[in-house]
């Protein structure tokens, strides 16, 4: 069981990481909100509530890392699609480089405690 500060820290880490997971999902193709949340919630432990992804999508848009457009859907009302921008691609590349080093270092230190 995680307690107080740890839970908050994990929530912040998750939130920070999810934004880049969204950017990674958008690299191959443009996606709409429901599709993005479903993809993320399929990954174990990444998203606890699907609805919490939407504020992150809004923030990515405000930061200029993604932009959006509406497209008609054959299955219902028009969908808002998210598309990664050049800044988003740059941010994702930088994150991927740093993330691998960060993850390896943390794993290394944690394994020493075993």
């Amino acid at each position, binding site marked *: 069981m995680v307690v107080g500060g740890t839970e908050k820290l994990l929530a912040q880490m998750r939130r920070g990481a999810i934004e880049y997971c969204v950017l990674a999902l958008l690299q191959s193709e443009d996606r709409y909100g429901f599709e993005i949340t479903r993809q993320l919630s399929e990954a174990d432990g990444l998203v606890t*509530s*699907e*609805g919490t992804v939407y504020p992150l999508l809004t923030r990515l848009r405000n930061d200029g890392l993604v932009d959006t457009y509406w497209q008609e859907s054959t299955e219902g009302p028009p969908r808002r699609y998210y598309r990664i921008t050049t800044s988003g691609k740059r941010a994702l590349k930088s994150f991927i480089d740093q993330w691998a080093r960060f993850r390896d270092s943390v794993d290394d230190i944690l394994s020493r405690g075993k």
Partner: protein
Amino acid sequence: MSEHMMSDRIIEEYLGALRDALRTVNPSSAKEFVAEIEQHISEGRTSLEPGDEVGLRNLLERIGSPTTLANELKETEPRTASGMDRVTPWLILAGGFAFGFGWLIGLYGLWSSKTWRIWDKLLGTFIWPGGLLGTFYFFGAISSSTVCSGVQNAGQTASTLTCVHHGIATLPRGLQFLAGFVIVAAPIFTSFRLGSVLSRGYADASNPRGIRVVRSGRSRTRTRVVWIIEGLMVLFFAIFVLTLH
């Protein structure tokens, strides 16, 4: 009650609870967020059988409780500036006219805040001390003066006076205008910059979202342009002061 009506009622209750939980959030953000969730529910319902109440409740549970969603939205909202932060750029600009006290209060707000970095604080303090009031002192200091030395006796037609002109009038007219413009524009630009930093917010140690330190390319370019303009202003001013002496 039909199965469809029951499903609609469950959704309405959920959205109503969400709207209630979002009362303290910026109204436009809250409205947009509710619309996103509504759309998500519509998408999720397409894979459910009509009247599948259990499926619908599972869908809503996966989306998250209204309280959880409201808390998440509050966490990801941009930091709102404190009241003091908001008035500080104005006090730095025009506070000097309130017998100087306004500027001093602004200076306290600037240095005690975590919003601005050290270079912004130095800029706010020294360009110019007193803000716009400081420009009047500058104009006084650099205004033209003539110092004469020598002897001129009463009744003499020819004087032995030697006069030396100092100040802005000794510069070419174009430079005079440019100097005047820079002196007036500099404190306005400084306050504009302080306001711009305030609205953008820095992701530094004071920011609880410390994990997000990547800034967009557009933001970085804007910052570079502002620093170049500031550098040119300071350089020009230094050359200008040296020219006067």
